[in-house]
């Protein structure tokens, strides 16, 4: 069986219009994307009769941590204006040769912060942006097909 796996090259990040970049959707020239961890809380259901180990059940709701991305700074592009409205954030995986639709992770969220570039000899100007999935819609992972 052929080995599989892929790098991050080709992944994209798009913010919907109105999230603080203006009236158009914004695709940043991303260099890296760091996704927040998706977790579910635990509920202790131990009783006085419990022995050996605490007993737990999953909580009802999942939580998705803050995500961030670094991107090449384009001086002619708008910087984010905070606070911005919530909107749809879409991360799309690089499509592979045997796929027609790439995997994606999408949902509504809002930008929680951005950092302009530092200036250093010989170093590409890069910015960083952070966003929180607000839970109103998704986020949902859709596998490639």
């Amino acid at each position: 069986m052929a080995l599989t796996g892929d790098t991050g090259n080709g992944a994209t990040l798009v913010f919907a219009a109105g999230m603080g970049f203006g009236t158009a959707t914004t695709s940043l020239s991303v260099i890296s994307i760091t996704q927040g961890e998706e977790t579910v809380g635990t509920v202790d259901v131990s009783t006085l009769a419990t022995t050996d180990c605490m007993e737990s059940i999953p909580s009802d709701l999942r939580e998705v941590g803050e995500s961030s991305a670094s991107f090449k700074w384009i001086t002619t592009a708008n910087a984010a204006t905070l606070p911005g409205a919530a909107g749809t954030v879409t991360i799309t995986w690089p499509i592979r040769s045997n796929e027609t639709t790439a995997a994606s992770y999408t949902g509504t969220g809002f930008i929680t912060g951005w950092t302009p570039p530092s200036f250093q000899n010989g170093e590409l100007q890069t910015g960083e942006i952070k966003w929180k999935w607000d839970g109103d819609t998704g986020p949902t992972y859709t596998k490639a097909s």
Partner: protein
Amino acid sequence: MADLAISIRTYLLTKTAITDLVGQRIYTDILPQSATLPAITMSKISTRHEHQLSDFGGLAHTRLQFECFAATRATANSIAEAIRSCGIITQKGTLTSVDIRGVRVEDGQRNYVDYPTDGSDEHRYVTTLDLVFDYTET
């Protein structure tokens, strides 16, 4: 896109501090046989390209090595110093179709001797200087 090394050679040949020493004798990679001294060779040592996830990042960094050949150590050093101080370090903007974003000395003067292979006692003194150029690329 214009070649960086060609652009830099063109720029250096506009500097009288350099042409007073070597004339038009700035060669690519190696000296011609029986070359008149003093002279300079330029070599592209390495190029690093910035990347974003979907494409090149639009910025590259090239290390050029300048070897300054002369009949005396003092002259070889003077040529290297002339390159360092000719104003190239402060270049920013279009230089013969290359958009330079920064220049810095990556490795300062180093010395070695080029021993003759013709049985003579005529050594060639070589002073080497490396510069890194940051420039935009498409």
